[in-house]
C-alpha cells in the first residue's frame, strides 16, 4: 500500500461523539424491568474467624429476595485466571474465593450478598445480617510475614506464594571489579486505580436460560470463571462488556460479576450491583507495595558491572495476579541497561492487607523507581551527566536484557528517547538565589513489555465483513477501557478497505457473538487485536483487489482501494467503484467476510528460579524528564515542565498515543507525589478522593509528548504498545529532580511535603 489515508492521522475516535453527548450507556446506565438491587456485606476486620452468620432477620425483611453466604455458592473456591486458555501451573493460578468462609483475610472481604427490591431495602438487610467474628492478630508487614513462624494469612504453611530469580554472569566477580557501589532500600506504596467509574454491572437470564452479565470489565473471558463458580457449562454464561469509565488494571480481576451471577441464578430476576466509591477503594485490588533492596556496582567511567536486587511484593490477602506482577518486576529489575553480572530474587508474600493485583505498569514502575534512583545517584557520585551515564549503559538494538538475556531484535530507541526528552526541557527556569523555591531537573528511562508473557500462548480473533453497499462490519471481543482500543480497529479496517471511518461499524465485547480477542490488559490490544484485525481486513482486501484486477484487466499489485473505489495506482482514471466490485464478488460467490486469528510467539513456561530467554514478545522504550520547583519552607513540589518521549513504533492514532503519554505521565506523577492507600494494620485510612489524592488540573504541567515512530514494533504497521509503559518512568524522574533541587534523596514513594521537610531538616542537623 502506498501512503496512509486513515492510519497515522489524528482523527476523532469512533466513540467520541457518543461520549460527548452523554448517549453512551456505561455499565451503571442500564436497567431492566423488575430488576433487583444488590449489596455486599463486607468484613470490618482484616483478620478474624467467622464463628457464625445468621441471615434469618435479613431474609424476613419485606422486599428482600435473596441473602447468600459461602454455603450457597456451588463452587466457592476456584482459581484466579485472567483470560488465559492455556494451563500454566506452577502456582500462577491462585485461590479465588467468592465469599469468606470460616476466616476473613482482609477488611472489606465479601461475606454475604443481598438482593432486594430497592437499594434502601438491600442496605437495611445488610444491617440485619448477624456475623459473629473472633478477631485474629493478622499480619500486615510483608517483611514480617515472610519470617518462619509468622501468622498465617491463608491455609498453607507459609505466606510466601511465589519466588522468582534471574542470574547472569558472576555477581561476586562483578562487584569486585566495581570502583563504586551504591546500596539502598526503596519502598513503594499501595496505589488505587481511581478510575472515575466505580465497578458496576447488571445480570439477567435470557429467553433460553443463558446467564447474561453486562459489566464494566477488562476481561470478558471471565465468563468461564463465573460458569465454574456456578457449576454451569461455559456456553451458558454470556458476558457483554460495556465501554469502561477507566480500568487501569483494576477491572482485570472479577469484580461484581460473580455476585450478580449468584443472585440472578438464585432469584431468576435481573440484578444490578454498583459499588460506592468507598467500597471501590476498600475492596478492589491495589498496586503492589514493594520493598526493594538494591546494590549496584559501576566502574569509574560509569560503566555498570553488577546489579543485585532483592524484591519483596505484598500480595495482600489473596494471590490474584500477584505472581504475574512479581514475575514482571523480576524481569524488569535491571531496567534497560547492559549489565554483565546480575542477580535478582523476588518473593511474593501474603498479608492481611487489601489484595493487590494488576495496576497500570504491572510490576514495571516499582523496580524502575529503584534502578533509576540508583542511576541518578551514580551520576552524581561519579560526576557524570545524567544523560551521559545512561548513554554509556543503555540497551541498544541487538543487545540482550540483563536479567533474562532476551535479545532485542527490533529497534531499541535508546538513547534516542532519552536525548529527546532531556533536550525538550529547554532553557532553565530562572530562580533567585535566596528564594525558598529551588529548581531541579531529573531524568529517567525505562522499558516495559507489550503483549502478554509468551508462555501464556496468547491469541486474538477478529471478524470483518464487507456489506453489499460498501459499509463494513467488525466483530471483536475487545474491551475498551477508554484508551481507544476499539476505535483503533475501525481505523485499520477503514485504511485497508479504503472506506471512511463513518462506514465502519464495530460490535464488540460480547462472549456469545464476537470472536474472543483476549483481555484489554498487558498493553496487548494494539499488538494482538490490531494484528488480528489487519489480517482479516487484508484477506478481504485481497479478494476485492483480485476481482477488480479481473474487471480492470490489470495486475492486482498495481491496484489500490481509495475513497470507496479500486483504482490503478499509476493511472487513477482506470477506476471501478467498490460497490461494483462487491457486486461482482457476490455474483461469483466470493466470500467477503473473514475471521482471523493472530497468535503471539509461544514459549514454554520458564524455570522460575532462573528465568532465561524470551518471556515477552517485545518491549517499548521511553524516557521522561522534568523540571520542578521545591518550596523548602513547605516541602511542596511543583512540576514546571514535563517531557515524555516514547517509541510507539507507529502511532495508528497520534491523538490516542499522545493521550496515553500525557495521561500516563500524570498517572505516574500521582505515584511520585501524592498517592498512597494508607493501611494501618489492614484498615484503609484513605477511602475517598478527599484522602486519596490524585492530580487535579491545577497540579499538572502541560505535558510535552514527543513521539518517536521507528516502525520497529510487532503490531500492525510496526506499532508498539504504549498504554502501560507511558506511566512507568515518571516517578524516579521527579524524585531525581527533587535531589537536584535540594540535595535530599527520598527513597520511598510518594514524596509528600512531610517527607521532604523531614528529610531537609535531617540534612540541616548534619550541617
Amino acid at each position, binding site marked *: 500500500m502506498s501512503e496512509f489515508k486513515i492510519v497515522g492521522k*489524528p482523527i*476523532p*475516535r469512533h*466513540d*467520541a*461523539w457518543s*461520549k*460527548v*453527548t*452523554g*448517549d*453512551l*450507556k*456505561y455499565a*451503571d*446506565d442500564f436497567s431492566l424491568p423488575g430488576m433487583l438491587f444488590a449489596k455486599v456485606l463486607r468484613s470490618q476486620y482484616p483478620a478474624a474467624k467467622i464463628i457464625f452468620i445468621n441471615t434469618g432477620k435479613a431474609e424476613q425483611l419485606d422486599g428482600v429476595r435473596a441473602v447468600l453466604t459461602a454455603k450457597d455458592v456451588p463452587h466457592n473456591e476456584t482459581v484466579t485466571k485472567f483470560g488465559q486458555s492455556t494451563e500454566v501451573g506452577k502456582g500462577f493460578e491462585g485461590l479465588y474465593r467468592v465469599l469468606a468462609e470460616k476466616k476473613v483475610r482482609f477488611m472489606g472481604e465479601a461475606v454475604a450478598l443481598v438482593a432486594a427490591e430497592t437499594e434502601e431495602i438491600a442496605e437495611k438487610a445488610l444491617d440485619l445480617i448477624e456475623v459473629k467474628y473472633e478477631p485474629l492478630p493478622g499480619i500486615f508487614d510483608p517483611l514480617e510475614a515472610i519470617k518462619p513462624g509468622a501468622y498465617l494469612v491463608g491455609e498453607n504453611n507459609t505466606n510466601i506464594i511465589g519466588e522468582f530469580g534471574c542470574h547472569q554472569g558472576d555477581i561476586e566477580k562483578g562487584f569486585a571489579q566495581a570502583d563504586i557501589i551504591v546500596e539502598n532500600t526503596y519502598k513503594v506504596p499501595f496505589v488505587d*486505580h*481511581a*478510575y*472515575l*467509574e*466505580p465497578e458496576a454491572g447488571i445480570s439477567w437470564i435470557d429467553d433460553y436460560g443463558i446467564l447474561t452479565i453486562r459489566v464494566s470489565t477488562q476481561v470478558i473471558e471471565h465468563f468461564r470463571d463465573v460458569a465454574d463458580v456456578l457449576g454451569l457449562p461455559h456456553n451458558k454464561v454470556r458476558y457483554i462488556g460495556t*465501554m*469502561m*469509565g*477507566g*480500568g*487501569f488494571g483494576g477491572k482485570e480481576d472479577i469484580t461484581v460479576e460473580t455476585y450478580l451471577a449468584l443472585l440472578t441464578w438464585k432469584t431468576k430476576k435481573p440484578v444490578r450491583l*454498583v459499588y*460506592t*466509591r468507598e467500597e471501590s477503594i476498600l475492596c478492589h485490588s491495589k498496586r503492589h507495595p514493594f520493598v526493594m533492596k538494591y546494590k549496584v556496582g559501576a566502574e569509574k567511567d560509569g560503566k555498570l558491572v553488577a546489579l543485585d536486587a532483592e524484591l519483596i511484593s505484598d500480595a495482600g490477602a489473596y494471590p490474584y495476579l500477584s505472581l504475574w506482577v512479581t514475575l514482571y518486576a523480576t524481569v524488569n529489575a535491571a531496567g534497560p541497561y547492559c549489565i554483565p553480572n546480575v542477580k535478582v530474587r523476588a518473593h511474593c508474600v501474603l498479608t492481611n492487607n487489601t489484595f493487590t493485583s494488576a495496576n497500570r505498569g504491572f510490576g514495571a514502575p516499582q523496580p524502575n523507581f529503584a534502578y533509576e534512583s540508583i542511576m541518578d545517584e551514580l551520576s552524581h557520585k561519579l560526576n557524570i551527566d545524567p544523560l551521559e551515564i545512561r548513554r554509556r549503559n543503555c540497551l541498544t538494538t541487538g543487545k540482550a536484557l540483563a536479567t533474562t538475556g532476551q535479545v532485542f531484535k527490533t529497534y531499541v530507541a535508546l538513547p534516542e528517547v532519552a536525548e529527546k526528552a532531556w533536550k525538550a526541557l529547554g532553557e532553565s527556569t530562572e530562580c533567585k538565589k535566596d528564594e525558598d523555591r529551588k529548581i531541579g531537573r531529573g531524568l529517567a528511562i525505562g522499558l516495559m513489555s507489550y503483549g502478554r508473557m509468551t508462555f501464556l500462548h496468547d491469541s486474538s480473533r477478529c471478524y470483518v465483513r464487507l456489506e453489499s453497499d460498501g459499509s463494513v462490519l467488525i466483530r471483536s471481543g475487545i474491551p475498551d*477501557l*477508554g*484508551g*481507544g482500543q476499539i476505535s483503533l480497529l475501525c481505523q485499520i479496517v477503514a485504511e485497508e478497505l479504503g472506506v471512511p471511518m463513518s462506514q465502519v461499524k464495530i460490535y464488540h465485547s460480547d462472549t456469545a457473538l464476537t470472536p474472543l480477542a483476549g483481555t484489554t490488559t498487558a498493553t496487548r490490544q494494539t499488538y494482538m487485536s490490531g494484528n488480528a484485525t489487519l489480517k482479516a481486513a487484508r484477506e478481504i482486501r485481497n479478494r476485492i483487489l483480485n476481482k477488480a484486477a479481473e474487471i480492470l484487466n490489470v495486475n492486482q499489485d498495481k491496484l489500490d482501494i481509495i475513497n470507496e473505489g479500486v483504482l490503478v495506482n499509476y493511472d487513477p482514471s482506470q477506476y471501478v467503484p467498490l460497490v461494483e466490485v462487491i457486486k461482482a464478488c457476490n455474483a461469483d460467490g466470493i466470500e467477503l467476510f473473514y475471521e482471523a486469528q493472530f497468535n503471539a510467539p509461544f514459549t514454554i513456561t520458564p524455570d522460575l528460579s532462573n528465568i532465561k530467554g524470551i518471556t515477552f514478545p517485545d518491549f517499548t522504550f521511553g524516557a521522561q524528564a522534568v523540571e520542578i520547583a521545591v518550596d523548602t519552607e513547605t516541602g511542596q513540589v511543583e512540576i514546571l515542565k514535563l517531557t515524555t518521549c516514547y517509541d510507539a513504533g507507529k502511532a495508528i492514532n497520534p*491523538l*490516542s498515543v*499522545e*493521550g496515553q503519554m*500525557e*495521561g*500516563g*505521565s*500524570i*498517572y505516574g506523577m500521582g505515584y511520585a507525589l501524592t498517592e498512597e492507600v494508607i493501611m494501618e494494620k489492614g484498615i484503609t485510612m484513605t477511602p*475517598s*478522593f*478527599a484522602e486519596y489524592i*490524585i*492530580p*487535579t*488540573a*491545577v497540579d*499538572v504541567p*502541560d*505535558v510535552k509528548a514527543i513521539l518517536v515512530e521507528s516502525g520497529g514494533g510487532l503490531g500492525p504497521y510496526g506499532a508498539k504498545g504504549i498504554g502501560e509503559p507511558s506511566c512507568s518512568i515518571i516517578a524516579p524522574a521527579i524524585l531525581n529532580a527533587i535531589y537536584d533541587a535540594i540535595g535530599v534523596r527520598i527513597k520511598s514513594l510518594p514524596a509528600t511535603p512531610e517527607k521532604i521537610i523531614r528529610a531537609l531538616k535531617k540534612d540541616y542537623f548534619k550541617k
Partner: protein
Amino acid sequence: MEEHRVELTVNDEKISAVAKAEESLLKFLRRNGFSEVKCGCEKGECGTCTVILNKKAVKSCIVLALQANHKEVWTVKGMEKLELGRKLQESFVNYGAIQCGFCTPGMILTAKDYMDKNPIPDRKEIKKAISGNLCRCTGYKKIVDAIYDVAVENYKLEGEIYV
C-alpha cells in the same frame, strides 16, 4: 421517607416527578432517565455529576432534588441546543480530550458555565475552573487544549465585532 413533587426544566423540557426528601439531585435525575449525569463518588469530590442549576455549575450529588424545584437544569444532553455547549462538544471531540469519557459530561458543563461568565479565559484560568472535576485518563492537557481553542475562537469573534 417523605416524598414531594418536584417540577423543573431539564434541558429546556418540563419534568414533573416525585422525589424523596433526602434524595440527591443526581439520584433523582438518573432515576428519571438522565443517565448522562454520571455518579463517581457521591461525595462532591470528583465532579462527574456536575450539572448547571440556574446558571451555576453544581455537583448534583450534594444538591437535594427538592432544591431544584421550579429551577432550570442543564445536562450534557442539552448542550447541543446551546451554541457554546455545541462548540465545546465539538472541540473535545477534535482535540482528543476524551478517553474513557466518564468525566466528560461534568467537564463540559463546568467549562460551559465558566465560559458563560468569562468567555476568553487563559490556560491557567481554565485549569483553575476545572480543578473540581477529576480526570484519571488524559492528564488534562487535551481537555485544556479543547477549552482553550473555544476561548481563542471567542476572542477572534469578539475581534470581528469590534473591528
